[in-house]
């Protein structure tokens, strides 16, 4: 039998209109004849149970198991009639359980255009400096530590920083950007999160953005066609605006509460700056470039997964 991890119970206020009785069975609710508020009901699995709530209340109880969940609901209407709904045990499903591990999932999103046209930093402009508008670093963060965290985020890509035991096969000369220091220049990103004309200076700053946006990355290119060469798009400017309305922590050490990790989010953002797109959260949720960060104080995005590395290698002509 599965081990129970947690049980949660909640009672909702609010009466069930008596006229709804006839409709209840259609929603898999059953009247419990003779039952009263306070009577104990046990789920058929034996894995959870609860007492019928007071009239006018609905109660939900769910036990989270190692392999899934079991839940039931009990509702007592204003007239004292008790309704019960026992949901089947929901077992975890391997084939629908989502993401593969970070070291085995080779997913990356290729550009719509062909690879020769891929947007990337060009060796003729490297090393390309990027800057931090340090005056925007929130006062509750240590500025020097924030700069270090962002530098580590940037370095994750050219060094292919990973926990998979995989070596770095991108030559530094192929993808070398360096921290250019502090700047007073603004990003080319508006407070609404839109990109403006490129300034040709890559800037990272903390500044307000609309609700629910954690960060915006704008990468802008110019067409290049040298004699005898295939036309390609050369990145000329990659800015990131981090939403200062959220609460941040530089690294996972000491992180608690509703804080997002600068290093985790910025590793993802630098991925965009280097030319990476998103991959699916539901199928590749452990990769840095998946659409969702893993939550507050979560650090998996610090390190690249297999797909992240294969993608960056493909862009920069390795692998």
């Amino acid at each position: 039998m599965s081990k129970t991890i947690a049980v949660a119970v909640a009672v909702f206020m609010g009466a069930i209109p008596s006229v709804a009785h006839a409709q209840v069975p259609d929603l898999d609710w059953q009247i419990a004849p003779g039952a009263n508020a306070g009577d104990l009901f046990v789920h058929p699995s034996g894995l959870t149970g609860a007492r019928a709530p007071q009239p006018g209340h609905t109660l939900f109880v769910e036990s989270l198991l190692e392999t899934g969940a079991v839940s039931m609901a009990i509702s007592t209407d204003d007239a004292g009639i008790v309704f019960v709904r026992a949901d089947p045990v929901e077992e975890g499903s391997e084939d629908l359980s989502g993401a593969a591990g970070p070291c085995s999932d080779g997913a990356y999103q290729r550009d719509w255009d062909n690879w020769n046209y891929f947007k990337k930093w060009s060796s003729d402009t490297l090393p390309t400096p990027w800057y931090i508008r340090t005056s925007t670093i929130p006062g509750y963060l240590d500025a020097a530590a924030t700069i270090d965290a962002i530098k580590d985020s940037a370095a994750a890509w050219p060094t292919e920083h990973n926990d998979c035991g995989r070596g770095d096969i991108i030559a530094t000369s192929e993808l070398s950007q360096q921290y250019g220091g502090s700047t007073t220049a603004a990003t080319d990103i508006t407070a609404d999160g839109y990109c403006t004309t490129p300034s040709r200076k890559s800037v990272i700053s903390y500044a307000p953005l609309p609700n629910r946006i954690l960060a915006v990355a704008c990468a802008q290119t110019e067409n290049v066609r040298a004699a005898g060469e295939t036309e390609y798009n050369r990145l000329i400017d990659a800015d990131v605006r981090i939403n200062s309305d959220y609460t941040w922590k530089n690294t996972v050490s000491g992180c608690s509460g509703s804080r997002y990790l600068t290093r985790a989010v910025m590793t993802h953002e630098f991925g965009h700056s280097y030319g990476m797109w998103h991959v699916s959260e539901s199928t590749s949720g452990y990769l840095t470039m998946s659409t969702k960060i893993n939550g507050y104080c979560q650090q998996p995005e610090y390190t690249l997964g297999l797909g992240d590395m294969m993608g960056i290698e493909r862009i920069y002509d390795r692998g």
Partner: protein
Amino acid sequence: MTAGRNMKQNLIFMLAVSAAGGVLLAGSATAQTEDPDTEAQTPPPIVLVSKAGRQRAVQESFCVESDTETGTRRRCVDMVDGRPRRLSVVRPRGRIAIIIDDATEASGIVTVQRLGRTRDVARFRVQGPRTPWRIRLRPGAYEVEVEVSAFRTADGRRGDTSGSLGLLVDRNRRISIIPVSALRSGRGPELTA
């Protein structure tokens, strides 16, 4: 990237169905004087079409790239987790369609979870701008997570996009699109999340 998976897992159950989507704030003053071409930087909307009407998804993370006079511009917006704010009421075994408005090409994946839960109960592929699907779900409230890994529009935008939609499978309730908050209004038997 959206804050989600582990946080979701930490939510052992969902009581009040979260309407946490929030509303994008109206544009505030910016330091830039230039008025950006916002349309070219906006992904095509994700829409759930059913007999109840059209429900536009709560936008989640996306990247959209478009051409400029001298090159290209790619805007990637990474968002915290979006929850559906509305639910399309549908019948069991009814039909819906996921539409990527304005798209000429689209591919990706749709996953369906009980509202407030993390385990997928259904999954199907986005195969083009319009993906029909017959509902094979037990009555209850669901979140429909759409992840478009690649799209292209007629006006030249391309990229990826994602969004969250809500579905209420119900045999009796009037076909309509209702706010998620309606599930918290004491209609006990319909609170299946």
